[in-house]
């Protein structure tokens, strides 16, 4: 990984020096060995502070929104998850491809507390799906990781057990909205929870309102979730949010035959279109 880090630093240094990009979004060090922080390199000499190691857990794509109104080109490091997030943001009309310079990094998974991070365990796209240049050689993809295993397990529980499961999980929610803010698919200019006095979402942090938020958010991103697992990673209360999102991903795939979200920057998504031959259950 230190090779990748060195190449990354060299490339970013040149890109900034040549004026091809105005800023580069990567990872930087913290005082803790096992943590990194999103790092913004503005000048060629900042490139030396970039870090790439197995602790680069943050998905950087959403920081590209900081440059959405900028005339300059922003550079960003993209692994599989970031590249799909970038595609998602372009498809949702929030970013412009020509104003991004994507430095691809094939990724073999990150570490969390010494073992493979939960968010990387079911990854099917370790290599970036879009990039302008690639650092290092493509890596082998995981073959059919059992990404829906947990969903199937919960589906087989009784209705009452499912209800109790989610109510117990959402009882922990503190409504910090870290899940929403970290999510590349949650990119609305204004979230429904922020709409003042519309009554969509009660602000009281009780299990019911928390779960209404949880289910609503899951539904809102259900057909656009790129399965990067950021929501679950950032949740300070450890709520298994991907177990909810993957349920929708699974249903969208099986009901509408959609491909995984974020593989291209094509604007279509399952609930934004229809097929006359869709399953008929309501006759």
């Amino acid at each position, binding site marked *: 990984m230190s090779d990748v880090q060195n190449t990354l630093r060299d490339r970013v240094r040149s890109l900034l020096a040549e004026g091809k990009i105005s800023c580069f979004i990567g990872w930087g060090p913290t005082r803790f060995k096992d943590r990194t922080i999103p790092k913004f390199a503005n000048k060629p000499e900042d490139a030396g502070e970039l870090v790439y190691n197995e602790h680069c857990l943050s998905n950087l794509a959403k920081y590209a929104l900081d440059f959405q109104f900028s005339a300059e080109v922003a550079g960003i490091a993209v692994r599989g998850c970031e590249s799909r997030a970038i595609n998602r943001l372009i498809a949702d009309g929030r970013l412009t491809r020509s104003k991004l310079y994507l430095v691809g990094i094939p990724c073999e998974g990150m570490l969390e507390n010494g073992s493979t991070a939960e968010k990387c365990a079911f990854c099917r796209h370790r290599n970036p799906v879009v990039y302008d240049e690639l650092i290092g050689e493509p890596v082998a993809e995981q073959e059919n990781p059992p990404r829906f295993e947990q969903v199937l397990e919960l589906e087989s529980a009784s209705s009452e057990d499912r209800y109790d499961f989610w109510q117990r999980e959402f009882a922990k929610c503190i409504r910090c909205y870290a899940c929403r803010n970290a999510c590349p698919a949650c990119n609305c200019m204004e979230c429904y929870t922020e709409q003042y006095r519309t009554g969509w979402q009660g602000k009281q942090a009780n299990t019911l309102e928390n779960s*209404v938020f949880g289910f609503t958010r899951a*539904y809102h991103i259900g057909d656009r979730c790129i399965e990067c697992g950021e929501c679950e990673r950032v949740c300070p209360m450890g709520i298994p949010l991907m177990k909810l999102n993957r349920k929708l991903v699974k249903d969208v795939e099986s009901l509408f035959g959609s491909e995984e979200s974020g593989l291209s920057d094509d604007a279509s998504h399952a609930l934004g279109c229809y097929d006359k031959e869709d399953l*008929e259950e*309501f006759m």
Partner: protein
Amino acid sequence: MARIDAENWEPKILAFCCNWCTYTGADLAGLNRMKYPDNIRIVRVPCSGRVNPQFILRGFQKGYDGVLVCGCHPGDCHYTSGNYFTRRRFLLMKRLLEYAGIETGRFQARWISGAEAAKFRDTVLKVTEEIRALGPNHRMKEADDHE
């Protein structure tokens, strides 16, 4: 207000009806003096595509025992394609609700045209009986003591 208890409980069902088909169908049922249970509360919407899936959650929160969404038959939408979107939306929402622990049958959707007064009556009868069998809904419901 009289307390609602196990003896006098009646299912309360929220029904979103499309203005152009189902609402007209319901009207026709009335004109034909068809009898159907008064357990449903109809909300007229311009199109079943107007029904935001959050309305369904809101219905359960506010104490409905069941929610029904009705629109024109696919292909007959007044706005050409509204109900095709509705269909996708609620195929997904129905599954999410069940996954969240809302019992199967609490949420239902039906296509009922303006001419199908009998289908409207039969649907209301059937849905009411199904929800009556499920009993009062306590899941995703705000506490009874308004807290």
